[in-house]
């Protein structure tokens, strides 16, 4: 072991800030790649200080150990029947996770590389280099694991191809992650990827999912996720010093706006992915908390601490729009994903057997009076053998920001919104549809960043999807008949608690 401790020489590896003279600061750090928001010259960024320090040699020694152990868990499990015996709902949760998260994590490596080149302090660029390596790891490990399961579940193919397709969830993932880091300047990325999304959501989600996975007996996924989580806290830290510099230079309003923009966007995709898996896909006996409880105990608490610690305010929509959505938004998305199940690459688990509905009613009082009614109607059609009535014949409207179906009517039905109608906005003669005030606000903040984009519905109406039918759209989305989502338990939930199938035809 080298004699000097890291702290004795570490500053020599990061005091690498210098005054450019052969090219200008704006040429070497152009605004498109590194928006300084008026904080110039670069010297003002040199005070950037990472709380969590690591050297190159420590990094490769630690990461070697992590990969060696987690890959060995995978190789042992690959030979077992563990995957086959997993609960169908849980299997759907990880098939959805791999498709929506694996390649995007690799993409985050491009966002980190962006900060590694265009970050305005050497210490920041160094941390971003480790972040680039971390995200390359996360992308590769979360494609290798599903790759080893292809023979057992062909839908694992989506871990690799999802972002190549125009499946509506893949479009929503691309739109979110390009806005957050792949097509975002270095300064905004530090605040929106690391400070908002990673520190605020995924760092905690990975903790929650690792615990759930162990509960469910999915040692493979549990080892994977907990190993990934240990990297997250390191590179997620880049946001703190960046926010500090903005606030100290009198730009707290810029930091606030960047956080408010990305918190809302992260919340909607998080509700779609994690809300469904926690409240509907995870087996009832293994649910340690409801999605709302997880959000309140972890995400809400974490963010309120962060807002306070950094001199920021809770987002303007916090009380009026965000907290109320905890009660209904993901329930509506679950209904939408299940009813439009052929448009997703996993098998949605309805999660509404009598026992599960009891749990939902306990965790969300009034659930049966609102969402329960939809499931009763659908269950009746299943029991009458009218499966076609439980499958879509048209499209939902899709939000021109988050690209997720517009479920404002569910919010109105649950007594949380004044109107069932979406939010319409005309910009340069074109009509845009938004699912919420905050999504519309994000668009209005920076229209030129989003205006020319077309949602699935825009493309359908624009004639891009031919033939303009549901089957035509399914093919356009890249789903083969075998991959189109089906009810995870073959409608077993519709018969549970009844003497014999069809006995209780109303």
């Amino acid at each position, binding site marked *: 072991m080298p004699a000097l401790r890291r702290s004795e020489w570490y500053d020599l590896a990061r005091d690498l800030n210098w005054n450019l003279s052969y090219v200008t600061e704006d040429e070497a750090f152009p605004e498109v790649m590194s928006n300084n928001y008026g904080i110039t010259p670069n010297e003002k960024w040199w005070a950037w200080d990472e709380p969590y320090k690591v050297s190159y040699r420590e990094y490769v020694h630690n990461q070697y150990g992590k990969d060696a152990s987690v890959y060995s868990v995978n190789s042992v499990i690959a030979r077992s029947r563990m995957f086959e015996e997993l609960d169908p709902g849980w299997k759907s949760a990880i098939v959805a996770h791999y498709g929506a998260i694996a390649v995007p994590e690799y993409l985050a490596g491009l966002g980190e590389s962006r900060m590694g080149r265009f970050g305005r302090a050497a210490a920041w660029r160094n941390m971003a280099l480790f972040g680039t390596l971390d995200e390359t790891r996360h992308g590769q490990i979360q494609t290798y694991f599903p790759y080893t399961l292809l023979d057992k579940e062909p839908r694992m193919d989506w871990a690799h191809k999802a972002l190549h397709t125009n499946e509506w969830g893949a479009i929503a993932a691309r739109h979110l992650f390009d806005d957050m880091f792949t097509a975002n300047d270095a300064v905004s990325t530090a605040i929106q990827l690391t400070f908002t999304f990673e520190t605020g959501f995924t760092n905690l989600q990975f903790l929650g999912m690792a615990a759930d996975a162990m509960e469910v007996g999915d040692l493979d996924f549990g080892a994977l996720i907990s190993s990934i989580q240990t990297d997250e806290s390191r590179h997620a830290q880049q946001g703190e010093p960046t926010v500090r510099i903005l606030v100290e230079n009198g730009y707290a309003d810029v930091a606030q706006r960047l956080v408010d923009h990305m918190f809302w966007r992260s919340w909607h995709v998080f509700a779609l992915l994690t809300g469904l898996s926690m409240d509907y896909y995870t087996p009832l006996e293994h649910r340690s908390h409801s999605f709302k409880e997880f959000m309140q105990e972890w995400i809400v608490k974490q963010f309120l601490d962060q807002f306070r610690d950094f001199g920021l305010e809770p987002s303007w929509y916090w009380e009026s729009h965000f907290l109320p959505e905890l009660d209904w938004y993901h329930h*509506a998305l679950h*209904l*939408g994903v299940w*009813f439009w199940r052929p448009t997703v690459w996993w098998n949605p688990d309805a999660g509404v057997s009598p026992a599960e509905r009891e749990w939902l009613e306990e965790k969300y009082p009034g659930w049966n009076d609102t*969402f329960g*009614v*939809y499931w009763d*109607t*659908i269950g009746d*059609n299943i029991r009458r053998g009218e499966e076609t*009535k*439980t499958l*879509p*014949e*048209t*499209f*939902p*409207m899709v939000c021109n920001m988050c690209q997720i*179906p*517009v*479920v*404002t*009517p*569910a919010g109105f*039905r649950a007594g949380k919104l004044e109107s*069932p*109608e*979406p939010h*319409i906005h005309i910009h340069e003669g074109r*009509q845009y*549809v938004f699912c919420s005030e905050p999504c519309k606000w994000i668009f209005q903040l920076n229209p030129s960043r989003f205006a020319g984009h077309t949602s699935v*519905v825009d493309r*359908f*109406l624009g004639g891009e999807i031919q033939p303009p039918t549901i089957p035509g759209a399914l093919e356009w989305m890249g789903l083969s008949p075998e991959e189109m989502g089906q009810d995870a338990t073959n409608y077993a939930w519709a018969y549970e608690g009844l003497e014999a199938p069809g006995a209780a035809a109303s």
Partner: protein
Amino acid sequence: MALFPIQGIYQDDFVVLLVPIDTEDPMTVVAEKIAHHAAGVRVPPAAGELRIKYQGELLDPEVTVVDAGVPPLGVLQAVTG
């Protein structure tokens, strides 16, 4: 006779739908086309006569989208009176 897209919301449904109608459909037919995707599908069929509400006003059952000045992707709610 021309295809015309509207945003349809059936009373008590949970989602806003893209519903293709025809420029010559009276509102009674528009209501049926919206109901087709929700009544008895996700929501028990509503009791009573279905009307179309546009920008807070109940439209005359016989008018068309053209008569009522509803633009493409106008938001129409199918509600019981």
